[in-house]
C-alpha cells in the first residue's frame, strides 16, 4: 500500500508545483467576481461615482500659478533678447529651466510636459527690430492646463512695454517695433474641461479602486471567512491576485464610462493612441488596487481601511496636479506628489489625450507607476498574515 501511496503523493506534489499557483489564483478570481456581482451597492457605486463626479467637476477650479517651467530657444544673443527674457522672468509667471538649441528639442520638451512654456527669440531679431521689420517673438504655451497658461499669457503685453522702457526704443510707440506671437498649443480654446476630464479619470479610479481592495481582506476577517480561507492551501500572492484581477475589469469599465461621457458631453479629444492609453490605464488601475490591498493587510477593520484610503486619496487629489498645477506647488509638495500614482497618471493621460504623446514621452511616469505597484505588492505579500496569531 505504502508504495502506491508514495507514488500518488509524489505525483500530487508535482502537479502542485506546476499548476497550483494559476489554479488557486483562478479559484480566488472566480470567487471574488461572484461576490462583487452579488454586492449591489458596490456595483451601483462603480457607475454612480464617476457620473456624479464628472458632472460636479464640470466646472474648473481657478488659480494663478507662478514660476512655471519655461524653455528658451535663443537663436541670437543680444541686449534686446536678454531684456525681453528678463522682463518675462520679472512677471513671476515664467521660470527658465531649460535652454535649448533647436526647434525639435523645444517641441519635445513641451510635448512631454517638462515645460509649460517655450520662448523663441529668432535669429536676427534685434536687427529686424532696428530695421523696423516688425519681427515676431514666439511664446508657445502648453494650454492643456488653461489655468496655468492663461494668466501667464495675459501678462505678455505688459512684458512688451517693460522691455521697451528698458531699452533704446523709447519715444516711438504707438506702433510696437516687434510682435509677441502667443501659441496656445494643444488646447487653443483654453477649455478647462479638456483638462479636467482626463484628470478625473485618474481621480475616480484612485478613489474607487483604493476602496474596493482596501476592504477586501478586512471583510474576510470580519465575516469570519478568513479562518476557512487560511486553513486551505492558498498562498498570499494567490489571494492578492484573486482579489485584484476582477477589479481591473471594473476599473476599465469606469475609465471607459468617464471617457465616453467626456467625449460625448464635453467634446474632449483623444489625440494619442487609444491602445497606449488603455495599456497605461490598466497599469494605473493595478497600481491603485495593489495599494488598496496593501492597506487592507495593515489595518484591523473596515473602518480603518476606509480612513486609510481617505488619507491617501486627499493628497492624491490636491498634490497630483489634478486640481492645482503641479509646477506651481512648493518643492516639498512636489516631492510628495511624485510619490503618488495619480500624479504620474494625470501627466500620462493628459499627454496622450490632449497632446498626442507617445510612449517615448511617458517612459519616466510609466516606470514610476510600475515601481509603486511592485512596492505595494511586495509589502502586501509580506504583511499578509498566514496564521491567526
Amino acid at each position, binding site marked *: 500500500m505504502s508504495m502506491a501511496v508514495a507514488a500518488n503523493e509524489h505525483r*500530487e506534489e508535482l502537479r502542485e508545483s506546476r499548476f497550483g499557483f494559476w489554479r*488557486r489564483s483562478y*479559484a480566488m478570481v472566480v470567487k471574488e467576481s461572484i461576490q462583487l456581482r452579488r454586492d449591489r451597492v458596490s456595483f451601483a457605486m462603480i457607475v454612480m461615482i464617476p457620473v456624479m463626479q464628472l458632472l460636479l467637476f464640470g466646472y474648473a477650479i481657478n488659480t494663478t500659478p507662478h514660476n512655471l517651467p519655461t524653455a528658451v530657444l535663443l537663436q541670437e544673443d543680444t541686449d534686446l533678447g536678454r531684456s525681453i527674457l528678463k522682463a518675462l522672468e520679472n512677471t513671476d509667471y515664467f521660470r527658465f529651466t531649460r535652454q535649448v538649441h533647436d526647434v525639435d528639442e523645444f517641441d519635445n520638451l513641451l510635448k512631454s510636459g517638462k515645460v509649460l512654456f517655450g520662448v523663441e527669440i529668432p535669429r536676427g531679431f534685434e536687427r529686424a527690430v532696428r530695421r523696423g521689420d516688425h519681427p515676431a517673438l514666439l511664446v508657445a504655451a502648453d494650454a492643456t492646463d488653461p489655468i496655468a497658461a492663461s494668466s501667464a499669457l495675459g501678462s505678455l503685453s505688459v512684458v512688451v512695454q517693460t522691455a521697451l522702457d528698458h531699452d533704446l526704443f523709447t519715444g516711438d510707440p504707438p506702433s510696437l517695433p516687434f510682435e509677441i506671437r502667443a501659441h496656445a498649443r494643444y488646447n487653443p480654446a483654453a477649455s478647462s474641461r479638456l483638462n479636467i476630464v482626463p484628470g478625473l479619470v485618474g481621480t475616480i479610479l484612485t478613489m474607487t479602486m483604493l476602496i474596493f481592495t482596501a476592504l477586501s481582506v478586512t471583510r474576510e476577517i470580519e465575516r469570519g*471567512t478568513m*479562518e*476557512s480561507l487560511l*486553513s*486551505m492551501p492558498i498562498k498570499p500572492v494567490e489571494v492578492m491576485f484573486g482579489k485584484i484581477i476582477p477589479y481591473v475589469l471594473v476599473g476599465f469599465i469606469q475609465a471607459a464610462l468617464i471617457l465616453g461621457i467626456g467625449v460625448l458631453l464635453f467634446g474632449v479629444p483623444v489625440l494619442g493612441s487609444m491602445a497606449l492609453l488603455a495599456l497605461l490605464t490598466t497599469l494605473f488601475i493595478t497600481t491603485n488596487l495593489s495599494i488598496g490591498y496593501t492597506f487592507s493587510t495593515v489595518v484591523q477593520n473596515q473602518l480603518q481601511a476606509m480612513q486609510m484610503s481617505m488619507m491617501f486619496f486627499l493628497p492624491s487629489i490636491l498634490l497630483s496636479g489634478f486640481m492645482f498645477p503641479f509646477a506651481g506647488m512648493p518643492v516639498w509638495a512636489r516631492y510628495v506628489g511624485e510619490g503618488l500614482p495619480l500624479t504620474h497618471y494625470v501627466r500620462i493621460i493628459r499627454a496622450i489625450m490632449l497632446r498626442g504623446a507617445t510612449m517615448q514621452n511617458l517612459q519616466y511616469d510609466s516606470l514610476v507607476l510600475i515601481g509603486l505597484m511592485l512596492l505595494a505588492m511586495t509589502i502586501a505579500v509580506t504583511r499578509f498574515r498566514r496564521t*491567526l*496569531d
Partner: protein
Amino acid sequence: MNAAAPIAIDVKGLTKSFEGREVVHELSMQVKRGSIYGFLGPNGSGKTTTIRMLCGLLTPDRGEGTCLGFDIRRDADKIKRRVGYMTQRFSLYQDLSVRENLEFVARLYGVADARGTAREMIKRLGLSGREEQLAGDLSGGWKQRLALGACTLPNPQLLLLDEPTAGVDPKARRDFWNEIHALAGQGLTVLVSTHYMDEAERCHEIAYIAYGHLLAHGSVDDVIAKSRLTTYTVTGDDLQALSEKLAGQPGIDMVAPFGTSLHVSGRDQAALESSIMPWRDKPALHWQKAAPSLEDVFIELMGRSKDNFQ
C-alpha cells in the same frame, strides 16, 4: 511513508498564550489513524486553540509535534492540503451559493473536475434543489452539512471539527454522527470537539481539557474508571432540600440533579458514605450505588480544575 503511519496526530507540550494569558498549557496527545477522537471541555478551555495549532492556523509558543507525519511548525502547507477543518462559526461565503462555495473549495485544492465534484457532493449532502441557494440563507443544520461537505470534498486524511453540532437539532445531529462514523470507516481520522455527552460516547477515544490543561484521556470506560468516582443516586421526596444539605459535606464533591433523581459523587468513598449516613435510612429516600456517568466525571473534573487553575 507518512500515509501509512499508525498515528495521525502526535504532539507534545503544546503551549499557547494570548496577551500573557496562557490558553493551552503543555498539551500532549496522540490520535490513532482511523479513529474518532472526542475533544471535550468547557467554553474557553483551549479546544479551538489546540485545533488551530494542529492545522497550522496558530503557531505554538512552545511544544512540537506532527500531524499526518508532517511537522506542525514547518510543514503547514502540506498539512493544510490533507486536512479538512470545520470551523466553529460557519466560515464559508454567505454570499456565495452552495454550489459556488463547493466549487471554490474544489478549485483551491486542485480537484480535477471541480464542477462535477461539487455536483456529486451536493447530491451526497442531500442538498439537491438547493444548490443555487446562498449559503447565508440556509438553516443551521444545512449550513453545518454544507460545511462538513466542503471540508471533506478534497478527500482529506484528517478532519478537525470544532463543535460541529452546536445549535443543531437532534435528528440532524444523529445524521451528522452517522456520516462521521461512515467517514472513519473509510480510514479517515476525525478529531471532534463537543459539549454533548452523548456525542462523547460515540467517540473511540476522548480527551477532557479545561483551562488549557488536558485532564483525562482514553476510551470512555477508561476515563470513567480512572476518575475513581463513587456515585450514589437518590430518588424520593424533596430532593432539592437534600441537595442543599449534602453539598459541601466532607467527601461529597458533587451533587447534581438528573431528572427525578440526584447524583451524589465523591472521590473518597469512605468519607462520602459516612456523610450520607444520616439520610441513608430515611424511608422517603431511595439510595442506590451506581456507576458514575461520563457527565458526572466531567462535572467533577470541571469543578476540580476550577479550584486548581483559576
